[in-house]
């Protein structure tokens, strides 16, 4: 058999492919079922968000940045507002901070639910995807109740939030959070004991801590590799120090750990939301900020912990009403860059699983 002549062949995965989660092209060199080489090609969704922001006022930048990472658009709103506030030293009212935390954490849950669904789907189990989206709809209801949109919110503004929550929000939110916390247990029961699921995830796509740090990997993927680094605690912003929550850490850095850590994070986020709902008090929701708000000249790189890792905005102001430079940094960008390092010499099915476990969202990469 050894003298049988074989040949490697190239296969184009994407830009239109069910498991690239958008429009990413992976050029695979295959040896039969084995992937010998992966070269990611991006840019199919490069929409020049940074260029657009340079010609808009600060208030108009926020809806554009919504589309930068639409699965957690609240984080995009927040990180930009935070950067602008840091430049001009605006104090955000207490209630607005709580509302921001509630929305950010709800959005993190929504994003992790999408991760859970799409990962399960990419590994071949279709039903968990629909379960996850069913729970996500409850969160969408809450957002809709608050700001009228399901996906791109424009809710967190410079100086506060745009609207107060309606009265029925609090009970509904408590109920939703409790339900989702229970449902996560159900998901774990659904998949964790399944031998096929274990075979497909445990030990697949191992990422060790050194490689992860070298490539600028952040967020759940970094923590699944055993590095205890969460910006909510280590580069504190907002009022996260007032809540009692754990930061889950896993050690193996394989697909299974990356999947488990997100399920755990959903439950932790549920805890934070419940506590925030307990602590929140009445008060103003927005500091006085003019629509043509002009921050002081200066620059800052602001980063927050998003569901996909570190989300940052490098904002330069020259003292006019338009930002001079906006550079958005998404968590997926380094993750996709890392893909060839850990996906070479695995089976094509593993490549799909690894790609799914990175939870790459292409607009965040392409911008």
């Amino acid at each position, binding site marked *: 058999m050894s003298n049988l002549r074989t040949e490697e062949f190239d296969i184009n995965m994407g830009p239109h492919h069910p498991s690239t989660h958008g429009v990413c092209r992976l050029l695979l060199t295959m040896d039969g079922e084995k992937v010998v080489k992966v070269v990611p090609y991006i840019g199919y969704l490069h*929409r020049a968000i940074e260029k657009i922001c340079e010609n808009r006022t600060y208030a108009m930048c926020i809806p554009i940045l919504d589309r930068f990472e639409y699965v957690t658009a609240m984080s995009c709103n927040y990180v930009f507002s935070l950067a602008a506030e840091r430049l001009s030293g605006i104090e955000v009212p207490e209630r607005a901070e709580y509302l921001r935390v509630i929305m950010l954490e709800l959005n993190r849950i929504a994003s992790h639910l999408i991760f859970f669904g799409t990962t399960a789907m990419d590994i071949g189990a279709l039903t968990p995807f629909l379960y996850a989206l069913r729970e996500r709809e409850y969160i969408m209801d809450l957002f809709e109740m608050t700001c009228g949109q399901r996906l791109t919110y424009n809710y967190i503004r410079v100086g506060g939030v745009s609207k107060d929550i309606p009265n029925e929000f609090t009970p509904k939110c408590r109920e939703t959070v409790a339900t989702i916390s229970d449902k996560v247990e159900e998901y774990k029961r659904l998949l964790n004991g399944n031998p096929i699921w274990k075979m497909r995830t445990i030990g697949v796509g191992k990422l060790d801590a050194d490689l992860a740090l070298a490539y600028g990997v952040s967020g759940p993927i970094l923590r699944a590799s055993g590095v205890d680094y969460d910006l909510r605690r280590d580069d504190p912003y907002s009022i996260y120090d007032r809540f009692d929550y754990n930061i889950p850490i896993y050690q193996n850095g394989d697909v299974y750990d990356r999947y488990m850590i997100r399920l755990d994070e959903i439950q932790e986020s549920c805890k934070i939301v419940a506590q925030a709902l307990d602590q929140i008090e009445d008060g103003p929701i927005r500091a006085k900020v003019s629509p043509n708000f002009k921050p002081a000249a200066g620059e800052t790189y602001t980063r927050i912990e998003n569901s996909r890792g570190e989300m940052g905005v490098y904002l330069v102001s020259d003292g006019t009403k338009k930002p001079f430079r906006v550079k958005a940094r998404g968590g997926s960008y380094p993750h996709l860059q890392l893909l060839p390092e850990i996906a070479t010499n695995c089976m094509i099915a593993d490549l799909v699983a690894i790609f799914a476990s990175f939870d790459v969202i292409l607009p965040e990469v392409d911008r």
Partner: protein
Amino acid sequence: MGIIKKLPVYSEKIPGGGIVTTSVEQVLNFAQAKSLWYLLFGTACCAIELMCTGASRYDFDRLGMIFRASPRQADLIIAAGTITKKMAPRLRTLYDQMAEPRYVIAMGGCTIKGGPFYYDSYSVEKGIEHIIPVDVFIPGCPPRPESLLEGCITLQKQIQQRKLGDWQEK
């Protein structure tokens, strides 16, 4: 399907043949309208809403719409999300790969005229109408699942009003 295309030519020569044409037309259009298999194509924000529409609460399957990953087997391409200049040739290829009769729904502002990326963007295609022919436009950024369902039902109605052989001309 050359025979069906020729059907009106032959049937109208015989007396009463128009009835045959009309009823065949109705049945065939009905079949096309009620079984729109859509291509799993999504680029940006709208793709998430497309996923939601396929999921439990809104459920495309009620309308008989299921997704196919291969363009050969799809009837409908829901262009969900921004189409950039880099993506445009690929969208055209996908459309060309689909088998006739094929339909296009342009979902969201970006596919209609570039949406929020109309100004100041050097890489966004300003509308997909000059790349592929569009049957139904759905405005919104992104459109709600209800709008998408409404758009699909509109397309179904459009298909049912077609004359035999119309879809060959497109």
